[in-house]
């Protein structure tokens, strides 16, 4: 027999202790590893997600800045347009008022008519002309025609035949003037006070604006 009972028992006890010790060591090792991996994993997760959160909020903050700028720009535009519209409305009022007062011009009404017809003739320079006027003006016109003819002949050495169109009078609501056409209707001149006002208004607009609102402070070049 190799060993005694006591020896065997002792050996077994040793082996048991050894097994237990190994198990404890292994368990400790696992625990330590677990702790280490815990820290790594947690750190990794927090880091990456934290970055994402930061980026997300930075983007949102930038968006707010942008929104603010866009809104301010829009409001500035609206403000400018408001001012411009106010000016345009006032100018329109002025022209409407002018239109209403057209009848009381600086020249006498019949004399005005005389000059307007002559002016249109000088534009047309046609031998035959159809003239449209207001119904009430046609009598005055009839009386003025000889004088008109003679002045025209003096200035251009040409003859002209004016036919007053008694079928198409101009509306009695306009303030004066006449329309002239060639007999075939291909050339047409509107020399009523209203058409003159429209034309003048367009041409004089810069001057009107300056007189009403003052010179443009932003303008640098005037020539």
């Amino acid at each position, binding site marked *: 027999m190799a060993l005694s009972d006591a020896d065997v028992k002792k050996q077994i006890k040793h082996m*048991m202790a050894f097994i*237990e010790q190994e*198990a404890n060591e292994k368990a400790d090792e696992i625990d330590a590893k677990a702790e280490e991996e*815990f820290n790594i*994993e947690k750190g990794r997760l*927090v880091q990456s997600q934290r970055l994402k959160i930061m980026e997300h909020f930075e983007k949102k903050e930038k968006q707010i800045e942008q929104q603010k700028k866009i809104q301010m720009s829009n409001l500035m535009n609206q403000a400018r347009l408001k001012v411009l519209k106010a000016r345009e409305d006032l100018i329109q009022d002025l022209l409407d008022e002018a239109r209403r007062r057209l009848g009381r*011009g600086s020249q006498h009404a019949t004399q005005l008519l005389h000059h307007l017809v002559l*002016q249109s003739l000088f534009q047309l320079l046609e031998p035959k002309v159809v003239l449209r006027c207001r119904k009430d003006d046609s009598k005055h016109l009839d009386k003025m025609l000889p004088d008109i003819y003679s002045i025209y002949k003096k200035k251009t050495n040409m003859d002209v035949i004016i036919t007053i169109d008694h079928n198409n009078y101009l509306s009695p609501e306009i303030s004066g003037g006449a329309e002239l056409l060639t007999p075939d209707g291909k050339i047409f001149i509107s020399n009523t006070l209203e058409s003159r006002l429209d034309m003048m208004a367009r041409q004089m607009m810069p001057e009107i604006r300056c007189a009403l609102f003052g010179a443009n402070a932003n303008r640098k070049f005037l020539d």
Partner: protein
Amino acid sequence: MASQTQGIQQLLQAEKRAAEKVAEARRRKTQRLKQAKEEAQGELEQYRRTREKEFQQQRAKVLGSQGDGIERMQQETEERVKKICSSYKENQEAVISRVIDIVCSVTPTVHINFVPSNENVVEMADETAVL
């Protein structure tokens, strides 16, 4: 011998306990890793909340300052419109008179390039622009 089996039994049991201890350690490890995720989420959630609060503060500040700017701009616009209206009132009569003057003053003139065909043309003093 009885003691031999007993010894072996003891050893086997020791092995079993050892294996259980190790298994237990492994379970703890998985548990710990799960904890890692949970704790991470917890911290992140808190970070997010803090950041959100900061963001809202910033936002309120920015939009607040904008409100002042908007008001100022509106006031400026009102003033400008008022100035325009008063300037208009001052000058409208003069401008209307001038416009009507121009419209109703007609000086019929032949075009400056027009040449009458004959010599028997009476030269008349030419007036200013056709208007």
